[in-house]
């Protein structure tokens, strides 16, 4: 009888300890899963922004997922035909060459022309800021005076006499071409007062924006391979 009591006692203790441990793990999990502080400290506007950012990203991933599934099916079908496989891999490669800048590309977009005036010169920083704004507005391909903007493009002033893009010298007028949703691109730059164009005009710089239904953007002529990344495997 006493032995039985002991066993029951141990079981109860065991269960209590187990529950306590589980509670701790749950707590830990909640903390690691959510960056509580960053969300807690947000204002309503910021939360709305965050929500819409995630919705957009979600939709983008869904689109990509559908494309992937379609490609998988096509590859499965192509297993019996070598020619079909060549077509598919070529198509994938061309798309990625379009995106990374190895191919010249076409599409709708905007052209922004920045010109030095007597009062004010265009600086590398003006162009760098513009690149950043165009990327934010979803530009899929950009060039400045036919220098394609790639992932590692840098833009610097050289002795205040000219600007170097991808290590190539360019001078005014700076013709910036961007392919993307024309409306998004234009409205992102044209916001009143705080938009790029109004800020530039306030600084007495010359900026002209035009929409185009078909823009040609040149390919990148440099080498895109890594130099310092260690190859694995």
């Amino acid at each position, binding site marked *: 009888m006493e032995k039985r009591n002991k066993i029951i006692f141990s079981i109860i203790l065991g269960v209590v300890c187990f529950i306590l441990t589980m509670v701790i793990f749950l707590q830990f999990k909640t903390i690691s899963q959510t960056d509580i502080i960053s969300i807690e400290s947000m204002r309503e506007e910021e939360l709305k922004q*965050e929500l819409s950012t995630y919705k957009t990203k979600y939709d983008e991933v869904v689109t990509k997922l559908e494309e992937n599934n379609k490609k998988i099916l096509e590859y499965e079908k192509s297993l019996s035909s*070598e020619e079909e*496989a*060549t077509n598919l891999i070529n198509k994938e490669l061309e798309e*990625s060459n379009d995106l990374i800048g190895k191919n010249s590309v076409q599409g709708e977009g905007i052209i922004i022309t920045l010109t030095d005036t007597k009062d004010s010169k265009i600086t590398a920083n003006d162009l*760098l800021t513009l690149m950043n704004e165009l990327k934010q507005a979803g530009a*899929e391909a950009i060039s400045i005076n036919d220098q394609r*903007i790639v992932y590692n493009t840098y833009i*610097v002033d050289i002795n205040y006499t000219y600007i170097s893009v991808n290590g190539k010298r360019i001078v005014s007028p700076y013709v910036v071409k961007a392919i993307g949703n024309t409306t998004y691109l234009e409205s992102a730059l044209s916001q009143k007062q705080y938009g790029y164009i109004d800020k530039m005009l306030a600084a007495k710089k010359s900026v002209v924006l035009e929409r185009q239904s078909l823009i040609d953007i040149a390919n990148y002529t440099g080498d895109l391979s*890594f130099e310092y990344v260690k190859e694995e495997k």
Partner: protein
Amino acid sequence: MKKYNAAIILGVTCLILVLAICIQIRTIEEASNVVGSSLNDNSEMKDKVLEAQEDYKQIYSQLEKSNKKLEKIRQLATSNSQEDELLKLELEDNDKVQGLTDVKGKGVIINLDDNREVDETEVLNISSYLVHEEDLLQIINELFNAGADAISINNQRVVSTTAILCDGNIIRVNGEIISVPITIKAIGYPESLYYALMRPQGYLDVMQKDGVIVKVEKSDDITISKYEGVYNYDYIIGGDK
């Protein structure tokens, strides 16, 4: 005697567990208190944001799975012809350039932090003690100019479509919120990267003198994680081939 020992051990264990729970709960409460009570009304909105983040994580992990599946079937489909295999290898190289793989190498690690020691009422311009989004844009530009292969800011990979934005007092990179302390990792030739930023009148040298907390170290073993997003291909209607 034995009974006592067992009881004491159990007692201590339970005490520790209860303490751990209490500490956890307090930490969470403290974190919420930062906000102030007036903002707690947004809790519904916060739940929605958390939910959206969770949904995104889920769909993204599905995408990763389907990427692996696609790689496998592509491998199989291109294994019959040497020509196809070469195209596949080129495609994989392109993926690396697009930042879709983790990469390793030597380079520099930059740590930046706002200077919180200064008294706002005593300095002329508190802004110069803080890290701004323009600073990040300039540092990235300098690093690529010095030959960097790959860069990340607080583990957000810098890719061809990366924008660095200021949105109120929040900095966003790839749409994700970044807050101080900021860690920038760059793979490249460590001496060149270091010199480009820390030389007299180099960008970080100036930032440091302005009062921002700057630490740069060279490292032989840096891992930069991949870009966790997708490239849109909606408005390019055709390449040159």
